[in-house]
């Protein structure tokens, strides 16, 4: 609605400084950040946690927390300064010029107000009466491609799925046709297929409505997909900026280079070499740093870097890097040797260590019964890594918990370990069996008792499972500490005093303490930053080679799963849809769901032309579709109607490769052949 006449950029940030006041001390969290977003441009801000990216977004709309303030620099949106304007002018700016969408759509909506009314409010501000505003709100829902607008208009937020709620929030944000749309991690809380839909939607609407976009994310690939230009934030400073392809393909700052090396490249596997990691930690907020903020962790750093902060060097057209050694950045020495031999994966041994037969789990009963797993048959081979992928509600965590005995499966389910049936519940299992099966949980904050010291936490499994005490315990403890690359001085600390990566190392040490033969890794890196993730993945790969353990590796991140896994199992709504060697599952032909999942993942390296689009929402596990559970969203559903009525069996389509689909393998190969997924 704001068709302004000024010629400048939509957003101009100059030397922005933001400070939080914590316990009576000022802590700078954003330092000297400058960037501009031109008209109709899409600009991405990427950074890990603590980089200050969300703080910047909040400052732009003058919504910093009570203890935060802009301590320097300026902001102009369409030439106006939101930081200096009057309250009524600010309200006007928020109503008409800037909109914001952020991470958790469920929490962004008022729980006691109907969705339609919440969108309509935007039009009411613009002066429409209630009926007209509601009409326009329904129009907006159509524009964000909601089919059932009538239902959504009258739904309360808790009745909407995450993806649907985010569409409502986007509709609300775009309702006033703002000049600038700020998206702060808009898809981070969503599943991969839903994320892909939302990203496509945003890209399409941006085109249609000629909106300028500031896109904030920790996910490099998402930013690469969505943005024309990118700024890389590190510890509150903009270290590199330029056209997206330049920044990601020809990075000129050691941090960007390091960050990209932390991510498994498409097709990279653990036996082809290890990931590189960025050593060290983010500087403490408020730490006095005289030189380059990244110098501490940079293997290129020279004396100069520690003396004065580097200016922004021009390194190409529109491409700048704050690094004295930007010319050599691409040749940043590896911090982790690439050639460490990992020992061959024991895939040649094909005897199962775990056999699961018709595993089902129903939560609740009667009409509200929720079938988390429906007769899953699966074996895990000795020494392999079995990757388990699926979106939320697929039952992957339930499967892991049932295997461990933390969740008791339904009657008739069989779980065998080494040929011996396991008791359903953990309490029925003898110490020897407990010792064999351990887990690394997703979130170390949750998995470690925060009141205990690292020493206690790691000693406990040694005492309980390995039966050690005295000097033998100490010896083994020191051994473990070394193998997870921690130091003795960490032993006296509590989890709260450790960084995320260190905490996860403690959790790994605990899992390995009793000498397990199978370790479940339940999203072990998804709570961690990219630079920390790589080190943990390397550690897991090293430990597997050394201890000869079997992994059941659960992740929603297909790149990570592919890097570590020998075989892959794909779950959807509690059913096993596909199982096979990693190369075949990824390379195809694959189940249409796997195909969609793979094509939903944005890539750092160019766009894939024809994404397989899924329609609709993930159905509820309380009320799964008839026949093939995937038929409601399947783009390759057969016209014969068989998909709707008959559940396809899990058939071996190639040696060791199983797919549960009515479409014959050759037909799948034909259909998918033109899509390059390698």
């Amino acid at each position, binding site marked *: 609605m704001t068709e302004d006449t000024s010629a400048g950029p939509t957003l101009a940030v100059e030397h922005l400084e933001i400070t939080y006041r914590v316990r009576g001390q000022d802590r700078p969290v954003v330092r000297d950040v400058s960037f501009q977003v031109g008209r109709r441009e899409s600009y991405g801000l990427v950074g890990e946690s603590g980089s200050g990216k969300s703080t910047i977004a909040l400052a732009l709309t003058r919504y910093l927390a009570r203890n935060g303030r802009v301590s320097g620099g300026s902001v102009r949106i369409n030439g106006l300064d939101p930081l200096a304007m009057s309250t009524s002018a600010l309200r006007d700016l928020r109503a008409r010029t800037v909109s914001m969408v952020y991470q958790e759509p469920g929490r962004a909506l008022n729980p006691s107000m109907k969705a339609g009314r919440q969108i309509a409010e935007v039009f009411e501000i613009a002066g429409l009466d209630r009926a007209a505003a509601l009409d326009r709100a329904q129009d907006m829902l159509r524009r964000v491609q909601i089919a059932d607008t009538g239902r959504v208009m009258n739904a309360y937020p808790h009745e909407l799925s995450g993806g649907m709620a985010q569409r409502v929030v986007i509709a609300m944000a775009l309702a006033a046709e703002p000049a600038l749309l700020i998206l702060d991690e808009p898809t981070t809380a969503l599943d991969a297929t839903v994320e892909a839909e939302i990203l496509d939607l945003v890209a399409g609407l941006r085109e249609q409505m000629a909106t300028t976009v500031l896109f904030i994310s920790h996910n490099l690939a998402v930013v690469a997909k969505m943005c024309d230009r990118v700024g890389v934030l590190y510890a509150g400073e903009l270290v590199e900026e330029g056209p997206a392809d330049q920044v990601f393909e020809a990075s000129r700052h050691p941090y960007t280079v390091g960050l990209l090396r932390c991510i498994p490249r498409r097709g990279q596997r653990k036996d082809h070499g290890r990931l*590189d*990691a*960025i*050593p*060290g*930690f983010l500087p*403490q907020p408020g730490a006095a740093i005289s030189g380059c903020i990244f110098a501490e962790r940079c*293997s290129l750093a020279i004396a100069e870097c520690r003396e004065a902060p580097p200016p922004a060097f021009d390194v190409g057209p529109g491409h700048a890097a704050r690094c004295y050694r930007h010319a050599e950045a691409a040749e940043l020495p*590896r*911090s*982790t*040797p690439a050639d*460490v*031999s990992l020992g061959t994966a024991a895939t040649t041994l094909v005897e199962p260590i775990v056999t699961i037969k018709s595993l089902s789990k129903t939560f609740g009963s009667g009409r509200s019964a929720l079938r988390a797993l429906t007769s899953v048959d699966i074996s895990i081979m000795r020494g392999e890594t079995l990757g388990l992928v699926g979106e939320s509600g697929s039952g992957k965590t339930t499967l892991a*918990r049932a295997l*461990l*005995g*933390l969740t008791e499966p339904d009657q008739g389910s069989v779980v065998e370990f080494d040929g011996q049936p396991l008791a359903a519940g*953990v*309490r029925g*299992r003898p*110490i020897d069996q*407990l010792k064999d*099966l*351990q*887990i690394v*949980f*997703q*979130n170390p904050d*949750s*998995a*470690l*008792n925060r*009141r205990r010291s690292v020493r206690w936490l790691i000693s*406990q*499994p040694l005492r*309980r*499972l390995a039966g050690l005490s005295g000097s033998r315990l100490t010896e083994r403890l020191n051994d473990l500490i*070394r*193998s997870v*690359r*921690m*130091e003795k*001085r*960490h032993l006296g*600390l509590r989890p*709260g*005093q*450790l*960084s995320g*990566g*260190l905490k996860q*190392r403690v959790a790994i040490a*605990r899992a390995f303490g*009793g000498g397990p033969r199978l370790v479940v890794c339940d999203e072990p890196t998804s709570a961690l930053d990219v630079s920390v993730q790589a*080190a943990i993945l*390397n*550690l897991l790969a*090293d430990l597997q080679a*050394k201890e000869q353990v079997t992994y059941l590796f659960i992740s929603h991140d297909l790149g990570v799963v592919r890097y570590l896994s020998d075989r892959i199992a794909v779950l959807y709504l509690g059913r096993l849809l596909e199982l096979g060697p990693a190369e075949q599952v990824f390379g195809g032909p694959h189940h249409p769901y796997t195909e969609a999942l793979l094509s939903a993942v944005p890539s750092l390296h160019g766009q894939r032309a024809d994404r397989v689009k899924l329609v609709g929402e993930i159905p509820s596990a309380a009320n799964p579709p008839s026949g093939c559970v995937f038929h409601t969203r399947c783009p390759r559903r057969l016209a014969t109607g068989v998909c709707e009525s008959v559940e396809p069996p899990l058939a071996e389509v190639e040696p060791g490769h199983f797919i549960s689909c009515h479409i014959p393998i050759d037909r799948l190969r034909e259909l998918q052949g033109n899509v390059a997924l390698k």
Partner: protein
Amino acid sequence: MSELTAAPGEVAVARALAAPPAPWRLLLRKPTFLIGAAVLLFWVICGIFGHLIAPFDPLVQQLIAKNTSPSGAHLFGTDPLGRDVLSRVIVGARDILLIAPLATLLGTACGTAIGLAMGYLGGVVDAVLGRIVEAVLALPVVIVAFLFIVAVGPSSLTLIIVVGFIFTPLIARTVRTAVLVESQLDYLSSARLLGERPAYIMFAEILPNVLPVIVVEFTVRLGYAIFAVATLSFLGFGVQQPTPDWGGDIAANYGLLGAGYWWETLFPALAIASLVMAVNLVTDSIEQVISS
């Protein structure tokens, strides 16, 4: 092991976050805490050494000096039996400061055990205990106290048991909520995978983590316990005369207000008010420090 020695970049460089200042240090910075603690300390000293501090024996009746107004000889005046009000106020701190904390302790101990069992064990245990807790909570507190005291007869012990009994379901409910939050966390699964027994998990793993909640709850309840004990004393269910007791003394003498003998009730009333406010200032500060 040799091929696995830490690669240079992968060594996890220590980053011990600056340890937050100890909670008690933060407490000492709060003026509300200091004021509350000072008043509380004053009454505790009166409770312990009251007989040594008091200018007169609180039980000795001077029948020639009945209902005398405050003066140099009797700073707070005397009561209808000629006893020194100041001395009775000083010595009267003892029983309430004994009964209220003991009652709170009893309620906290029982409530914590029940709350832990309900929150962690869940299922049938939670359902059955939950019904009982709900039933007790469904009665107005004062009614429960009445029934109890009428049935058992008034005494200090009855008072402790009654107030403890009333607090038990309240504390159980709070602890249960806190335990349910902990139950979502994986460290409990982790302990189960080490073969730990439920009792161990409840008391060694969960309890330390819900302790802050229990501490806050204890201090909050302590304030209410003083409220309840004083009130029940006033209603004649507490410490019996002639033992000096604030609530009891007010009950004995408030009928004389109409005659203008205000000092006999005002000073014990102010004593109660200062004690509950002191406890609540301390509570409020502790709550703020723990929640920050």
